[in-house]
């Protein structure tokens, strides 16, 4: 295994352990160490993506390894942005385990260095990675919304049961969870829209059709509509609280299930 992957995996593993530990103990523990390890791991992660890009002369977004690596990278980035905006330290405990799993999958995936696509022009060579990259970033944003939704449900449960454990004091307020969830969802939706537009454009530029009605395309549009409905009800119907939190959780589960389903039942990407 690449030395970079060892650094990345160790770094994220430390972050996972620290964030879960911090959520269940009263005092802040090793916050600085965890932050330093995270910086190191993220640096190595970014370096791996860049190196791969330089070596292959294209965006590192082709094949399982590159895509999972990029998705994990997007997740770390989204979590850090959410942390910067809302200071919700607890969010890390809900997202980093998945980051670690994704990073591990990427680390042990076969490394088809030579994997490439033939493009007939430069536009296509930009559109396809833009399409894939934007969608992956959209999913990481949706995952942050999912994580915040889970935090909302746990915090609400604590409030309803009126027995406050350590986690009650560590989780952010209901409104903060709600705000993270709705903002992450809105950002994810914008990214997803751009990603889909990129995909349609690519399809037209390559095959001269916008729409091929493949399972993946149908699935994308269905997800897009699902999120549109949720966001619309949030904005127009003042929908919030528990229902919105559940919606962000369920919609993400649906996305993941159908993504996996499409992948195994139908075509690959």
């Amino acid at each position, binding site marked *: 295994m690449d030395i970079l992957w060892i650094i990345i995996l160790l770094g994220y593993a430390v972050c996972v352990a620290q964030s879960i530990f911090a959520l269940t103990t009263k005092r802040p523990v090793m916050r600085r160490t965890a932050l330093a390890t995270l910086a190191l791991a993220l640096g190595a992660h970014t370096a791996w993506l860049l190196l791969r890009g330089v070596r292959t002369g294209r965006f590192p977004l082709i094949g399982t390894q590159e895509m999972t690596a990029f998705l994990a990278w997007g997740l770390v980035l989204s979590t850090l942005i959410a942390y910067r905006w809302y200071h919700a330290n607890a969010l890390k405990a809900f997202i980093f385990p998945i980051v670690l799993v994704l990073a591990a999958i990427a680390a042990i995936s076969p490394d088809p260095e030579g994997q490439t696509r033939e493009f007939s022009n430069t536009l296509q060579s930009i559109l396809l990675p833009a399409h894939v990259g934007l969608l992956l970033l959209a999913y990481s944003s949706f995952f942050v919304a999912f994580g915040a939704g889970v935090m909302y449900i746990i915090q609400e449960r604590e409030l*309803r049961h*009126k027995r406050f454990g350590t986690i009650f004091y560590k989780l952010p307020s209901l*409104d903060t969870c709600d705000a993270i969830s709705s903002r992450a969802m809105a950002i994810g939706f914008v990214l997803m829209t751009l990603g889909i537009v990129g995909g349609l454009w690519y399809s037209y530029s390559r095959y001269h059709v916008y729409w091929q009605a493949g399972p993946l395309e149908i699935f994308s549009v269905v997800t897009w509509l699902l999120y549109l409905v949720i966001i619309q009800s949030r904005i127009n119907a*003042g929908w919030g*609280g528990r229902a919105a939190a559940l919606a962000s959780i369920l919609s993400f589960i649906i996305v993941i299930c159908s993504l996996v389903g499409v992948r195994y039942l139908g075509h690959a990407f």
Partner: protein
Amino acid sequence: MNIVLVGLSHKTAPLAMRERLAFGESQLVDALSRLVDQKTVDEGLIVSTCNRVELIASTPAGAERGLECLADFLRDFHHLTPDALNGHLYKHADTGAIKHLFRVASSLDSMVVGESQILGQVKDAYQQAINAGTIGRVLSQLMHRALSVAKRIRTETGVAQNPVSVSSVSVELARKIFGDLSDKTVLLVGAGEVAELAARSLIEAGTSKLIVTNRTAERAEDIASKFSGGAVNFEAFYDVLPSADIVICSTGAPDYIIRPPETKRALKSRKKGPVLFIDISVPRNIDPGLSALENAFLFDIDDLDSIISTNLRERESEARQAESIIDAEVEHFVEHLRSLDIGPAVVEVKELLSQIVISEFRRNRKRLGVLSPEQEAAIEEVVIPALVNKISHPMIVHIRNAAREGKPTQMMDELRKMIRID
């Protein structure tokens, strides 16, 4: 040099006596200067709050006389009979005094362990003593350490973490639901004292708006004007319910006045997230069925009480950990104080050594023959001091170590003997 402390607190004296012995703000400067006027007291400080009076001083006259002097001062200042304070005063010297002060500042000796006011009060007392000019080297170091120990205990242990009063629990609940309170509206239904306190805490925590409603309208307007809020008619309070984020209810009504159906409508029409209901009335005024509504969080007085008692237990167990921090810090500070005390000893050793060297130099001056004035000056100003420093250095290290172990005098006696052997 000794540090002495005499005082009384809610643990040793009833309120009437504490009132009697309190030093008012206006008396404090006078009291401080009278305290250090006495020959037995070099530096002094008075902490006076509704729960305690503490006199802390540094004295050159020995611990026993120092303590006596502080107790006499307390009695005389407040014109009390000689045995009026019997059994109510506690007296601590040196390690005991340092420990007591650290515990007080860290709020381990408070009525409610971990409350935050005492630290501010100790800080104020220190500032006032500085202004009065009664703080010197010893007490300034002691106070700095006491304040930093208090801070350390607040951050490293959970003694001050969880709220333990109805008001602070209300604020904590509001924070855990809303996070930022700055755009939140509080609705006060009924105007009980506890409810008013809770409303005050919420306003201090940053809520933007207060609406008050009460059966007697004057009282509602009274409170509303106190917090620059608005008063509404009691019959019409359901109309303002949708705009409220936090509802505090404490009326004398014999039955439920906030019920699920109306509340459900209000929640629906407000198109915003959750609402916090706090019912501190007995009998209850909010139908417990409310907690089944989505986005309604209801806490009655029993819920608050059980949260408070859990948190108190939590604080007590955290306090045990704090005590061990205190012990370590006291030991550390005592060592530090002792090493401060060696200043005069260091001077003495150097003095003795340089006397010997200079006298030997003068005695043998002739043997050195003709020296230019520059050479002569160099010997007296450079060579001899350097020689003395070199020779005395290991001795000083030795004294410092002995001082840390608490036996500087013994070591000095031995050194004197050694140096004087000639």
